[in-house]
C-alpha cells in the first residue's frame, strides 16, 4: 500500500538526487534564453555558440553524454563561459561524476563568485558526496540570502541531522514548525532532532501526529527512534523490524534497526542490517560508524577500516569517528598515529571517557606509566560523574 504520509527522509534525502537535474534544466533554459546574446564576431565564437546550442538541445533530449562532450568543446573554445561551465557541472553531477562536477562549479564560481545557482549546485554535489559540512556551509549562506526557500531549508536541516548537529536542526526548524505545525517533513526532522538531542518530550510532542498510524513504516521508524532514544532497545528492534518489513527501502530504517540489534547483542543480525543500510546509502554515517566499530571490537580490523574511514570522511569532526580511527590505529600497531589522533581528541573533548580509556591503554603499551595512570584517573573521575559526560558514540 502506498504511504499517505510524506516521508520526510524520502522528501529530504531524495530531493538532492532530483535537485541537480531540475536545477540543471533550470540553468540550461536560462542560458538557452540568452543564446542570442551569446553571439560574438569571431569565427570560433560562432562555433562555440553553435556548439552551446547543440549542447542545450542534447540536454533537453536527455542525451547527457553528448551534452557533456559538447560543453567540453565549448569550453575549449570559450574557457570563460560561465553558462557552459555550470551546465557541464550539472550534467556531470547528474551522471554521478560529483568530483568532476565540483571542479567545474568551482571554476564557474571563479568567474561569478556570487552566482546562487552554481553555489546551490556545488552544495548539492557535495551533499551527494557525503561532504555534509561543506554542503551545510553553502546551504547556510544561501538560506540566509533566501530564507523563504524551503528546499534550501530542508537540505540544510538534513545536513545538520546527518552531521549530528541536532541543536542546529532545532534552531533552524523550530520557528518553521511554529509557523506551520502541519508540515510533516518538518515534524519528522525536527522531532528526530529533539529525540536525538535528548529532548524526548519535545520530540514526542512534535511527532505525535505522525505516530498515530503504525501501519505506516515511517511511523514505525519514528516510534523505533523514540524507543531507541529511551534505551528500550528490545522494543525498538521489534518496531524497526516491522518498519523494514513494511518498506525495506525506507531510508534510515536499516541503520537504526542494526543499531538496536547491536544493543541487544544480536551482532550477526546487526551486521547484516548495517550492511544493508550502507548498501542503501553509502553515506549513512551511523551505519558506517557502528559497523566499523563492531568489526574493530571483534578484532576484524581489516574489514573495519573502510567503514570507519568513511564515517570519518562523512563527519570529520565527529569525536566518535575520530575515536574509532584512533582505536583502529592502536589495534593495528600504528601507535604514533593513534597517539596523535587520541591526544587531539582528548584536548577537544576532555570529558569523553572512551578517549581517556584508549589513551590509558596506549600509554601503557608505550611504556609511559605515569601518563597511563593519569588517564586512568581521568576515566575514573569521569565515571564518578555517572558517565553522563562526553558525546554519545553517534555524535
Amino acid at each position, binding site marked *: 500500500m502506498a504511504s499517505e504520509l510524506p516521508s520526510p527522509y524520502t522528501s529530504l534525502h531524495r530531493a538532492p538526487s532530483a535537485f541537480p537535474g531540475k536545477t540543471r534544466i533550470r540553468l540550461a533554459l536560462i542560458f538557452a534564453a540568452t543564446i542570442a546574446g551569446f553571439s560574438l564576431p569571431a569565427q570560433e565564437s560562432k562555433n562555440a555558440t553553435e556548439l552551446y546550442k547543440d549542447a542545450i538541445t542534447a540536454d533537453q533530449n536527455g542525451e547527457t553524454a553528448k551534452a557533456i562532450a559538447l560543453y567540453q568543446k565549448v569550453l575549449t573554445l570559450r574557457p570563460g563561459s560561465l553558462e557552459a561551465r555550470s551546465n557541464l557541472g550539472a550534467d556531470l553531477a547528474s551522471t554521478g561524476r560529483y568530483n568532476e562536477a565540483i571542479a567545474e562549479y568551482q571554476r564557474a564560481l571563479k568567474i561569478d563568485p556570487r552566482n546562487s545557482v552554481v553555489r546551490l549546485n556545488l552544495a548539492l554535489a557535495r551533499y551527494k558526496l557525503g561532504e555534509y559540512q561543506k554542503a551545510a556551509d553553502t546551504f547556510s549562506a544561501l538560506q540566509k540570502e533566501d530564507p523563504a526557500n524551503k528546499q534550501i531549508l530542508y537540505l540544510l536541516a538534513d545536513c545538520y541531522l546527518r552531521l549530528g548537529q541536532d541543536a542546529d536542526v532545532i534552531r533552524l526548524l523550530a520557528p518553521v514548525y511554529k509557523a506551520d505545525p502541519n508540515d510533516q517533513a518538518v515534524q519528522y526532522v525536527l522531532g528526530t532532532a529533539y529525540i536525538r538531542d535528548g529532548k524526548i518530550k519535545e520530540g514526542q510532542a512534535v511527532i505525535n501526529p505522525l505516530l498515530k498510524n503504525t501501519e505506516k513504516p515511517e511511523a514505525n521508524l519514528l516510534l523505533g527512534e523514540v524507543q531507541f532514544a529511551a534505551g528500550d532497545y528490545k522494543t525498538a528492534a521489534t518496531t524497526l523490524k516491522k518498519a523494514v518489513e513494511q518498506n525495506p527501502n525506507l531510508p534510515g530504517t536499516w541503520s537504526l534497526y542494526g543499531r538496536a540489534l547491536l544493543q541487544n*547483542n*544480536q*551482532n*550477526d543480525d546487526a551486521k547484516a542490517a548495517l550492511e544493508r543500510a550502507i548498501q542503501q546509502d553509502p553515506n549513512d554515517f551511523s551505519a558506517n560508524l557502528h559497523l566499523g566499530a563492531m568489526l574493530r*571490537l*571483534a*578484532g*576484524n580490523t581489516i574489514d573495519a577500516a573502510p567503514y570507519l574511514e568513511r564515517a570519518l570522511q562523512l563527519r570529520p569532526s565527529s569525536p566518535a569517528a575520530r575515536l574509532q580511527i584512533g582505536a583502529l590505529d592502536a*589495534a593495528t600497531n600504528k601507535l604514533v598515529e593513534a597517539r596523535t589522533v587520541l591526544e587531539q581528541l582528548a584536548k577537544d573533548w576532555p570529558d569523553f*571517557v*572512551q578517549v*581517556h*580509556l584508549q589513551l*590509558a*591503554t596506549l*600509554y*601503557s*603499551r608505550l*611504556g609511559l*606509566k605515569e601518563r*597511563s*595512570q593519569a*588517564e*586512568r584517573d581521568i*576515566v*575514573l573521575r*569521569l*565515571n564518578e560523574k555517572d*558517565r553522563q559526560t562526553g558525546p554519545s*558514540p553517534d555524535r
Partner: protein
Amino acid sequence: MHFRDVSAEAGLTTIPHTRTDRRYVLDTMSGGGIALLDCDNDGKLDIAVVNDSTIDQYLKGGDPMITLYHQDSNSSHLHFTNVTVKAGLTTKGWGMAIAVGDYDNDGLPDIYVTGYEHNVLYHNLGDCRFEDVTEKAGVKGGGFSTGAAWSDYDRDGKLDLFVARYVHTDARHLPDPKLSFGYKGVLVELPDRMEGEPDLLYHNRGDGTFEEVSKKAGVDDSQKLHGMGVVWGDYDGDGWPDLIVTNDSGWNYLYHNKHDGTFEDLGVATGIGLGPFGEPYGNMAADFGDFDRDGKLDILDSRFGSQPASLYWNRGQEFPDVAERAKIAKPTFSPVKWGIGFGDFDNDGWPDFLMANGNFSSLMDTIPGEVRFAEPIQLFRNLGDRTFEEMADAVGLNPGVLKSRRGTAFGDINNDGNLDVVIFNVGEPPSLFINETANSNHCVLFRLIGTKSNRAAIGARVAVTTSAMTQIDEVRAGGSYNSMNDWRLHFGLGSEATMTKVEVSWPSGAKQQFQNLPADRIYEIKEGEPPKPVATLPNPQSSSAVK
C-alpha cells in the same frame, strides 16, 4: 566429552539452611564457595562447600560456615561422608568463599572461609581435623568479605592471603524494602549505590600470625569498590604473582606486582578494567589460563546478566577483549554468570572453560523476560583456533531440573585423568559431575611440593612440552567465584604419550627441567628433586566410569 551428575549417589546430600527468595544484598550475594582439597593427603580429593545462611538464622548465631565431605578411602565406588563436625569445622557464621593453603608449611592443607562480619582460618591438625585459629592468626576480617586467595606475593616462602570485600550492610538494621528499594516491581535490594568496603592483604609473618598490609602494598581498594572474585597469576611472566580483583559495578583491578611488596593497578591501563565504552560492569569472577597456548596467561571474566563474559587475550601490555571473535560473547550475554574457570575437559591439549549461571533470587522469576533464577551451566570447548563452541547440554551438564549455580571447582576426583567438576547450588546440595569422557587423548597430573618455596607450591608454574605443543599453568589457591580448584595441575596432551620437556618454575626462583616423561601418570615433584610417579592413570580409550 561426557559428564554424569553423581552427587546424590556419592553422598553429597546435605541441604544448606538457606532460602531462594532472597531480597537483601546480604542474602542475594552471599555464599557460593566450593573447594577441592585433599585434607588428609590420602591422594583422593575431598570436597568443602561453603554454607550460606538466612538473615534470621544468622541473627540467631548462624550456621557452620562450611561442610566438609571426605572421600571414603575403602569404598568400592565413589562416595563421600560428611565429616564436618568430626573435623572440628564448627565455627558458625555466614559463609561466602573458601581458599585452601598451607600457611605454616606443615604439608597439610589449611582452610580459610570468608563470610559476613567474620572469616575463619582453620589450621589442619592432620587426619582431616581442624582448629579455628582465626583470632590468633589475626585474619578475622570483618565486614562483608567475599573472594579470597593465597599466594606468596613477596616470595619469602610463606603464603599470604588476599581477601576482597563487598558492600557495607548491617544485618541488624536492614532497610524497609517497601521504602528503600525495588527492581521492576519486585522488592529486592540492589548493591549499585551501596557503600563498598576496602580489601585486605594479610602478610604471613611465619609465626602463625598475619599482618594486614593492604594499604602499604597498594591493594587496599581506597575507592571502596564492590570486591567479588580474587585470583593470583603471573600474567607478565616475571616470576612474581600478580592479582586480579573483580569488582561488581566497578572496574576490575589488575594489580601488577612491583617486586618490592607493593602493587600498581593496571586494570584500566591494560584494558581489563572497564568495558569498551568505559562502562563499569557487574564483574563476578576471573580466571587465568593460556587458551591459545602462546605462552602467556589470558583472562576470563564472568559478569552479571545482559553483559557478555570477556576473554582478555594477553598481548603483553594490553588485554584486548576477544570474546566476540572467540564466539563466546553472544552465548554468555544473557545469564547472570558466577563461577568460571579454564580446564581441559577432553584432554586435547586446549583449555576449555566452564561457567555456572543463575539469577540472584527466585523472586526474579516473577518478572517476565528476566533472567531465570535457575539457569543452564555452560561449557565452552576450545576448538584450537581461538574460538569456542558451547556444548554443556550435549555433554550432560544440564540434566533434569535446572539449578541456580554459583562457584565451581575442577579436579580429578576419581584419579582417572579426566577433569571433574563440582558446583555450588543455591539452596541445594552441591553437584558433582564426573567426567566420563573416553577418548584416545593422554594426560598428566602434577602435584608440586615446595621446599624453599611455600610447601603447597602456590604460584609455581609448569610448562609442559610435547612434540606438538607447549602448555603452561600455575598452582593457584583460590579463584573462580569464591572457590578453589585442586592444587594438582592437570594437562591434556592429545595424542602425545610422552612429554619431551617439563619445566617447573618455583616461587623461590629455582627452575627445574625434566625430559621425556611418560604421560598418563600422576607425578609428585618436590622442589629440587626429580619427578616421582605416584599413580598410573587408566590407558586412554578405556572407560573412565566412576570407581
